[in-house]
């Protein structure tokens, strides 16, 4: 028992889907449990933070941390696990790039709290609504809550990350490959993303039906069309981010007749996933007149949501808000 490598799992700002992805290993998880000693996994096992604190530095072989970092508590836990672990792996899109919770960076703490506790349409007005405080005195004593940061961060904006497992959530295949690679010590250079190195289109089953020159006269949204499962989705006018997204996901969405939304993140050569996606779409629109371009782009009413869906915290520009947004 003592010789088995110790493994920890932790979740930050996430939906729980990444935990599900671990469970989705199904029978394979038995092999994992056989090979490692899980020392911390709040969602499934009853170990406490004190147990982790009591461990020696570097005694955990690998920590898988999913979710973005939104609260002070998550940042503290990330630091703690970093200190106790030899390897820290960002597990899933939120940890890798900031993910969907990262879209909250379009607002700041004050505007989010205002909307949810004071001015939102579902909040009853006229009451004395209290916005959560970090510390509050009650007759029974002092209550504490973690602090809510102004910004959502990806894990590597808080601690050093050794490897990334992309995906929303990471697929069974890349998770089990990563675990095998870690156990055998057969790992790529630090900082690598443990998935494909080429764009999704390379492995897409519909790639053969992609026209030689891809041009789009009309962008269609998924609820507007009956998708032809045999033809490249872009050729059908659906905005698929396959060309600018890292592959390795086994084209799960495409197999399910849905366009890629970019959860595996950018390719190694790309710094800004959103800008690259925007660039790609602009390149395939088949119109040269401003009016026609505008008309086609009317079907992209929310470019941030489309192109930065998983990577907004990577864009430091969001801290330069000069126009007050939202409600």
């Amino acid at each position, binding site marked *: 028992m003592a010789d088995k490598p110790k493994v920890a799992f932790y979740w930050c700002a996430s939906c729980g889907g990444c935990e599900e992805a671990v469970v989705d290993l199904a029978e394979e998880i038995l092999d994992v449990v056989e090979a490692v000693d899980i020392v911390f996994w709040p969602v499934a096992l009853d170990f406490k933070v004190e147990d982790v604190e009591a461990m020696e530095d570097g005694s955990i072989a690998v920590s898988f941390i999913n979710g973005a970092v939104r609260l002070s508590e998550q940042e503290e836990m990330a630091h703690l696990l970093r200190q106790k672990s030899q390897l820290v792996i960002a597990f899933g899109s939120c940890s890798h790039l900031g993910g969907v919770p990262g879209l909250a960076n379009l607002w700041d703490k004050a505007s989010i709290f205002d909307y949810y506790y004071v001015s939102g349409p579902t909040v009853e007005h006229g009451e004395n609504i209290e916005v959560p405080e970090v510390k509050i005195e009650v007759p029974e004593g002092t209550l504490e809550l973690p602090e809510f940061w102004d910004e959502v961060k990806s894990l590597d904006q808080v601690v050093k990350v050794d490897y990334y497992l992309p995906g929303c959530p990471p697929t069974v295949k890349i998770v089990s490959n990563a675990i095998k690679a870690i156990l055998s010590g057969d790992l790529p250079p630090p900082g690598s993303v443990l998935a494909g190195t080429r764009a999704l289109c390379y492995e897409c089953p519909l790639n053969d039906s992609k026209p030689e020159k891809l041009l789009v006269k009309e962008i269609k949204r998924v609820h507007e069309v009956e998708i032809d499962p045999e033809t490249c989705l872009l050729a059908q006018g659906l905005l698929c981010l396959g060309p600018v997204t890292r592959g390795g996901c086994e084209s799960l969405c495409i197999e399910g007749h849905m366009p890629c939304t970019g959860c595996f993140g950018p390719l190694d050569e790309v710094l800004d996933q959103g800008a690259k996606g*925007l660039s790609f779409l602009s390149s395939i629109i088949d119109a040269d007149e401003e009016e026609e371009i505008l008309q086609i782009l009317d079907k992209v009413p929310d470019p941030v949501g489309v192109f930065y869906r998983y990577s907004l915290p990577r864009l430091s520009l969001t801290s330069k808000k000069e126009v007050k947004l939202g409600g």
Partner: protein
Amino acid sequence: MKLEVFEPRIVAFVCNWCTYIAADAAGVARARYASNVRLIRTMCSGRIDPQFIMSAFEKGADGVLMCGCHPGDCHYREGNYKALRRYILLKRLLPQLGINEDRLRLEWISASEPEKFRRVADDITEQIRQIGPLIENGGE
């Protein structure tokens, strides 16, 4: 800080075949224009990756100017149309991020229009001066 006049930092991505030559000609003719505009030459306006623009804003530019050949004149036939489409989409994206869309501007300036280049450089500098610096949480 209040006593100082705000000098905007403007990054201009200019096409090698038109605006860069126009800017060069403006210089040879000793035309005076705002020194706030820093030129970066690209081989075509179609080479101006939106990543460059976002990165310019992230790293402290107050305004970004994209310059290319007039429609129909692209050295590579359609690069400037790609630039136009990227520009249109970026203009839609920037306000979502809380950035004034007027900080980004696209101009067609041919090699024979040094005067237009001078005018545009002065004009965008004044415009950005009016908008003010792009600083962290400037709108708060």
